[in-house]
């Protein structure tokens, strides 16, 4: 019985150790790899540092979309109060439209332009990313049913 208890204790200790290691890995992983969601107003308020990746959400400003020679595009993201210029080298999702919601992943460069690495597609015409809705509400530009 004693040997059995001893083995159980060793087993429990091993389990705790494994659990601690996994928890450590998770916490470390989260610390290094979470991305914040920011609205253009957040960006204007210096809440982001250049080079730090984050997700920018808002509306694509009407008339702001310009194509370059190759696949690069340039547009502006707005929440009605502030506007952030964005560069993207890639193919825009099919549902990307001026005047509609967008979420892009990337970071600010030194000159105040957002360099997007990924522009997220919405799945549906009526759909507005909840983060964007909240950003618009915060800036007071959201009207219920205006979509």
């Amino acid at each position, binding site marked *: 019985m004693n040997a*059995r208890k001893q083995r159980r204790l060793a087993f429990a200790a091993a389990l705790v150790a*494994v659990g601690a290691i*996994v928890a450590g*890995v*998770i916490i*470390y*992983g*989260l610390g*290094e*790899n*979470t*991305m*914040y*969601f920011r609205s253009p107003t957040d960006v204007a308020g210096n809440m982001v540092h250049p080079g730090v990746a984050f*997700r920018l959400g808002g509306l694509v400003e009407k008339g702001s979309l310009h*194509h370059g*020679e*190759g*696949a690069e595009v340039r547009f502006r993201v707005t929440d009605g109060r502030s506007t952030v210029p964005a560069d993207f*080298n*890639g*193919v*825009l*999702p*099919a*549902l*990307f439209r001026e005047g509609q919601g967008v979420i892009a*992943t990337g970071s600010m460069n030194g000159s105040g332009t957002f360099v997007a690495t990924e522009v997220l*597609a919405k*799945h*549906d*015409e009526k*759909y507005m*990313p*909840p*983060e964007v809705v*909240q950003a618009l509400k915060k800036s007071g530009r959201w009207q219920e049913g205006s979509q």
Partner: protein
Amino acid sequence: MTGELGQLALCFALALSLVMSVAGLFGIKEDRVAARGVAVSSAFGLFVFVALAFGALTYGFIVSDFSILDVASNSNTLKPLVYKISGVWGNHEGSMLLWVLVLSIYAALVAGLQRGGARLTSAALGVQGLLAAAFLLFILFTSNPFLRLDPAPFEGAGLNPLLQDPGLAMHPPMLYAGYVGLSASFSYAAAALLVGEPAQTNAWARAARPFMLVAWMALTCGIALGSWWAYYVLGWGGFWGWDPVENASLMPWLVATALLHSALATEKSGAFRTWSLLLAIAGFSLSLIGTFLVRSGLTSSVHAFASDPTRGFFILVLIALAIGGALALFAWRAPTLQGGTAFQPVSRETTLLLNNVFLVAACACVFVGTLYPMVLDATNGTKISVGPPYYMLTFAPIFFALLLLVPFGPQLNWRRGDLKAAWQSLYPALGLAAIAAVVVLAVVTPRSLAGAGAFAVAGWLIGASILDIRKRRGARASAFAAALAHAGLGITLMGVTGTTVWRSEALTVVAPGQTMTVGPYTLRFDGVTRVKGPNYIADRGRFVIMDGGKATTVMQPEHRLYLAQGQDITDTAIHTTGFRDLYLALGDDRDGGRFAVRAYVSPLAPLIWLGALVMALGGALSLWGRLRLSEPETKPATPAVALAAE
């Protein structure tokens, strides 16, 4: 008329599920034979009435009965018939009805097969009845698919075009067969605790095994289908994005895989008794949580049909009751179970233990990564997202370590194994691993150490599976199940490595007549024509693969506009050799007939899904052996022979 019929059938089903749960739980006591009979018949009745309701809704979709709100808001006369039918589960109400249909199918199977004896079956039916009742209440009060719309509109709104796809038509039924299949092992585990006799604590594992296998196979196929769909529809060339919705299906799969392994030990030697019970509870709990995540609208994706707070709240309460109830039962009854048989540190049991430790740890990483952003948002409104790098840092190394250990399991005997002998018999697999690494380093450009390492592991897995198959030559087919499933892991690993390490990508704007190159391919762009589909119009690009100035293959990626919703969809074109995919997505229209084009060459991409299929085949072999062998004791399997020889 059919709408009311369906509604009525649902009400009957609810009544039957309540009868089934009461009678089933009452029938646990030895002498209550009549109650058990009632539970069994109500399980069949439940299935019949839910099937009737489901049939009524399907009929409504087929004949486009727009007086049913659910049909009007999710279907359209222009849709092809297949998508009218798949539209039944392409919306919240219908998909919940499908969920209950699958639940009732499993209940009927539990009742019909009577595995594990009358009392265990009865208790399992009781629990299954409670689950069915909860979900039927949910449907009737918050998500009734038969609500009427007056006046009926002339035309329906149509199905989200992204869902109008053969792969996705099959994805939800598959995934649900998996999610809900775990309810059967959950019910059996709860039943074992309720019956509470030591003999039953191993019997449940054997009784629930076919259900675990079916659930696991269906989950494997369902996840593979979902990832295949994401690959060829979403147009970003990836196969897995660590999206909360994908994670929601991965977590039950990880736990189901752990359960398959630990229940094997419980069944064979009585080891991990309480642990297997806990895993069975956790597996279905994660299915429920997955459903909640996906359906509640907490995640923004194609799966979040409608975000209605009452629904989210209802499911949350349901989850709390199911998980809380099961865990309370576990805490109450599990201490009375006797400990399992002892095993040596070097034994099959130890490898299964390690398997479980790694799988559960991997699942914990996914769980935290998925829920942390939601918890943070709910508590202080901070919006963050956890991306692929997190999973590469946490999940990937844990899973990789697991893969390294996989070959040892089948080589070790139960209770006491010989590590040295196992290691020696694995030398050929080690040789294959080394050859794979060297060949990859020498031949494939660009040179990648990570790629070579991953191929070595794949070689190690596949080599060990071949050795295992050779060792068991002449045994019955189900003896090869594990080898096949493990080889499938190796195949998928090769596919994942090929596409992530050696993918080449081209992003260009081309004018008609121009050529572009991607990887080894040269493509000529012939321009775009406007074509008309059944319910969409499309810009269809024409690309020709040029081989030394000669045109070989035509590829036609499309950009579709679905009329009912006014929604744009990219329809990719994929040319596959079986070992390499050339992937084309037509981007936005630039002036002068020029188009942005995204092209990928993904080496070995098809292996990702082939591997999943091989894994599922392994499960099928094991299932076949199980069902053919009604009494598992009659002919001991190979490990048992080894055990007896000791």
